[in-house]
């Protein structure tokens, strides 16, 4: 994806496995890669259980990912060590196999050849070579693994340290610029609170989440003010007036009024509750919002209100959104680019219009054929395309991978299918 636009989030080979007992694993997300550019809305669709929510949750570090990495603003926030571990094991295994092979060869050669010393010397050298090769791979992977574990654990601390260092430098400069003693004092005080906040800064805070169920995701014992302000308080802000002011501003921004701040969630309708959820996410001034099916639990007329609200916020604050949904009409309306997931794999990724105009992967086709439209004559003639992966693909010889078929349009396929899709696209 060579593009001038700044990439905000980069997901590379994300894998999230869950243990199922007896040594089995559920591959909820398996080798998914995508980028989200700054300011765009990236939609993730798929049927329930295909891993789209897990992807969202892994990005925000609600789970420890198994392998792969997630870069947010060019800093790695999630990293899994599984792939490195496997690489080390494989290298060691290959090394052992090679040793055995060498031993056999050596014995044979010793039987036939007369120069015993020379042969032994030759094979010792070969053995050493193999050991060095293996050691190099192992060392490289160990390093990577250590880095991954470190990033997974300490990315927030590193980020905070960096911010604090920058801030400290700024303070020095500001203090140097101050003239009188009082000014210095005021300046120092100001920077003290700033530093306090900065030391608690976590990079994941720049990503916020909106949940599906507005009832379950709001604590019934907290007032709306407490719910919205909770993030700020955890963040280390102690100025009550400042918090109140901010809460009121946000409430107005999401279409509620000041008076609502003192109420409890049960006093609101579904749409208003979802607005509270949105306010809670937006108040942290995030760069990325992960919206996990924010409208699917809402009533018709309210869905439109919430979609409009999200659209307005996006235009106003320039927030990037990862929009997870199963309603394809909504996702088409709202997203710039769409990724289609099927059983933990990303099968197709394309700009919204491109995806709906030229769906290539059979699963995408089947998904699009299932959208109900408010048009009775059309609906009654609509034929759903059934997707049967066993019948569609033959991956026994040729392994599939993600390929770019036209700029911006990626598809999960093998060589034969790639040619087929290309022909299909050309014919249209």
């Amino acid at each position: 994806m060579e593009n001038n636009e700044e990439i905000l989030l980069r997901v590379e080979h994300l894998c999230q496995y869950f243990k199922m007992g007896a040594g089995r694993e559920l591959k909820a997300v398996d080798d998914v890669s995508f980028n989200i550019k700054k300011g765009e809305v990236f939609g993730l669709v798929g049927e329930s259980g295909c891993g789209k929510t897990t992807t969202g949750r892994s990005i925000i570090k609600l789970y420890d990912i198994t392998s792969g990495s997630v870069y947010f603003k060019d800093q790695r926030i999630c990293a899994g060590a599984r792939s490195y571990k496997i690489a080390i094991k494989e290298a060691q295994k290959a090394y052992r196999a090679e040793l055995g092979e060498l031993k056999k060869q050596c014995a044979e050669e010793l039987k036939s050849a007369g120069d015993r010393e020379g042969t032994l010397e030759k094979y010792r050298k070969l053995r050493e070579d193999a050991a060095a090769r293996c050691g190099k791979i192992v060392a490289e992977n160990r390093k990577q693994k250590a880095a991954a574990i470190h990033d997974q654990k300490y990315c927030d601390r590193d980020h905070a340290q960096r911010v604090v260092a920058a801030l400290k430098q700024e303070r020095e400069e500001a203090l140097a610029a101050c003239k009188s003693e009082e000014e210095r004092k005021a300046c120092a005080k100001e920077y003290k609170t700033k530093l306090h906040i900065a030391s608690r800064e976590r990079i994941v805070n720049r990503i916020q989440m909106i949940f599906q169920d507005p009832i379950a995701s709001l604590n019934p014992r907290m007032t709306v003010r407490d719910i919205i302000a909770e993030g700020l308080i955890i963040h280390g802000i102690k100025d009550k007036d400042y918090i109140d002011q901010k809460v009121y501003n946000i409430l107005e921004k999401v279409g509620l009024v000041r008076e609502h701040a003192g109420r409890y969630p049960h006093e609101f309708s579904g749409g208003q509750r979802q607005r509270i959820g949105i306010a809670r996410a937006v108040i942290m001034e995030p760069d990325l919002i992960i919206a996990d099916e924010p409208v699917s639990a809402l009533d018709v007329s309210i869905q439109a209100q919430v979609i409009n609200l999200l659209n307005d916020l996006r235009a106003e604050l320039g927030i990037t959104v990862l929009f997870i949904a199963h309603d394809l009409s909504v996702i088409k309306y709202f997203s710039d680019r769409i990724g289609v997931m099927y059983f933990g794999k990303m099968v197709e990724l394309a700009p919204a219009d491109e995806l709906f105009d030229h769906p290539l992967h059979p699963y995408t086709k089947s998904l699009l054929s299932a959208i109900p439209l408010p048009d009775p004559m059309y609906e009654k003639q609509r034929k759903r395309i059934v997707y049967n992966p066993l019948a569609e693909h033959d991956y026994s010889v040729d392994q599939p991978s993600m390929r770019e078929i036209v700029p911006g349009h990626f598809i999960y396929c093998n060589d034969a299918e790639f040619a087929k899709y290309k022909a299909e696209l050309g014919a249209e």
Partner: protein
Amino acid sequence: MAKEVNTNKEVKLEVNNLQISFRTANGKVQAVRDISFKLYKGETLAIVGESGSGKSVTTRAMLGILAGNAIKEGGEIIYDGQDLMKISEEDFHRIRGDKIAMIFQDPLSSLNPIMRVGNQMTEAMLIKGKLSQKEARRDFNDALKRLNECMNAAGGNEKENTEKCEAFNKFEVCHLKLENEYNRAHEAASDALKGIEDLLFEIEKHAATKLVPDLRSICKLSAASVERYVVFGRAQELKGHISALRRLAHVPAHYKAKRFALSLLQKQAKPWQFDEAAICEHLNAVRAILTEAVAFEKPNFFAMGYYLTFGEKTLPDMSVAELNVYLRKYLDEKFMLDFIGRAKEGLRYSHEVSTAKKKEALETFERLKPVFMKETLDKKEVFAAAKELVEAVEAGIDRLEIIKDNSAYTFGSSLRSAVNQYFDGIVRNKKEEVRYAKQMAIYERKSKNGRDPDYKVAEKKLVNLREAAEDIVAVITRVAEDFRRRIKASDSVDMDRRTVDMIDWLKQKASDVAYKVTRSMAKTRALKLLKEVGIPEPRKRYRQYPFEFSGGMRQRIVIAIALSANPDILICDEPTTALDVTIQSQILELINRVNQERQLSVIFITHDLGVVANMADRVAVMYAGKIVEIGTANDVFYSPAHPYTWALLSSMPDLDTKEKLEAIPGTPPNMIYPPKGDAFAERNKYAMRIDFEEQPPMFKISDTHYAATWLLHPNAPKVDPPKSVTDRIERMKSRLAKQTQGAAEPAGSKQ
């Protein structure tokens, strides 16, 4: 294809002026305010509206599962000659689930958490199976007895008549046993066939890992089809193949050991290799035989039953087609023509008598009407008159009619409740007056003494006696009009048609009697249903608990349970709202298919207009407890008339929407204080002054299309729907044109 909506169709359910409120701490919430509609047989009626518009309450009233604080203010829901608003809980047991089934929005609330899914499915089948057998026997015997009586009364040999009826009963049962056997075998054969095809496909595609359980079930099914096939000559051959398959499917005991499974998992051992070529060969042979068997013409069991009961003991040696002709002829000559003739006479007699009684009842109406028209009604006189009227009407019912004459059947209960309302009103009004006077006196005394009271005396809640009396007359006039219409149409009744219907009905009832649900049958049926609703590995899932299923899967289980009782009316309360598109579309297809196969009527509640377009024959749009627009799906989607429908249509994005969505401003009104005029006026940008003052009546747009908005009044200014709606309709039309064009070309239709 759009299903034809025929207004002459049989009415399954009728809702008249339904009003339901809920008592709450803040006051009375009027959830449903005076709605009426009819549900025809085999149609799907979609009810659309926001939450709180009363759509769920309406359907819950049909099942008698309203919350405890509900007040049934009035109206009636007529189903099968009963008013569902008035019948007892005991009677509801017979209707709920069996006749009217419901799929709820939240699947967890309708599943028992501590029972395995399989048991929950079969439990209902077994209980309902017994009950329906009993009921069918009662219905069958009653109807046959009455038919016999009428035949006798119409003239003709009494002894012969009785003999004929008894004979009918006898060979009917024989025929059903045969047919049941055949059906079971046929079902087993087609199931086995499908299993074989799946298995062959899997073997072909890649080594079948789950070969053993599948093979076993196929062997079982094929064996069942062999044992039960009555008219089938290749049983020996099939049996040979099946035993060979059984042998091939046998896995040595060593390979089944637990230790082996573990080493298999660790990839240290190889699994047992089947002889796939041999298995495929046998499977193909079985497939060929079963295909032939499934494609067999169905024998005429009805005639065969008669032949075997009263004719020879063995069937003549013929092909099925010839046999059918022969048996049919035999039956017609010996029995059927005669029986039909007699039954026709009986039906005609019954019809004539009831018409005469209807005329009498009409006279009684005329005679007794003044009693109810008086300024103040006399209790004794009214009760006597009511009793006489009810008797007259009940005499006027033709008991041999299959389609129950709804308003006459419920006349008794509706009249009684209307009369009671009036006289209870008198008593209550008096009490209310006394209370008001007393409290007012205290209030005035207090204020006179200078103690300013800080409360207000509650207003008088009086029953409007004038209206109550009018209600009584309305109940009578409705039945009278119905009778008049029927008397007028009585000459043109097609007696032949009715006779055939009657005999078909008797056959149906007899088949219900003979249809005994056993435990294994229920299990097979449950497994089949599970598979039908798209649950993979039904055998494993059958033994799981509800918590082991995901949301979509749970919903499918609930649908399977609702379908298992073979209901007459299926109410779906937002069944697919929580599901994703692919599963939603599968489930909609499932409901549609069942609807067509079993001719059941569906009430579909949803707020997804796309789903409505897919499912509905007719659409009712509800807002604030009232139906604001009702019409066929094409009416409502292509020429919507009510501003609320416009708003709904424009608030949802479809695939071509680019512009900003037009959300409906505000929220629905508080139904404790329902607005005086049109409830939607507050949020309606087309509202006129009259909308705030008076409720609009239902305006007729076409025979099938009605809407309640003042915009349709002849004096109203002409208003066009908003641009987004007209645009969308344009787009639909162009897409339709394109599609029909595409369908014309064979290549295009495949895409």
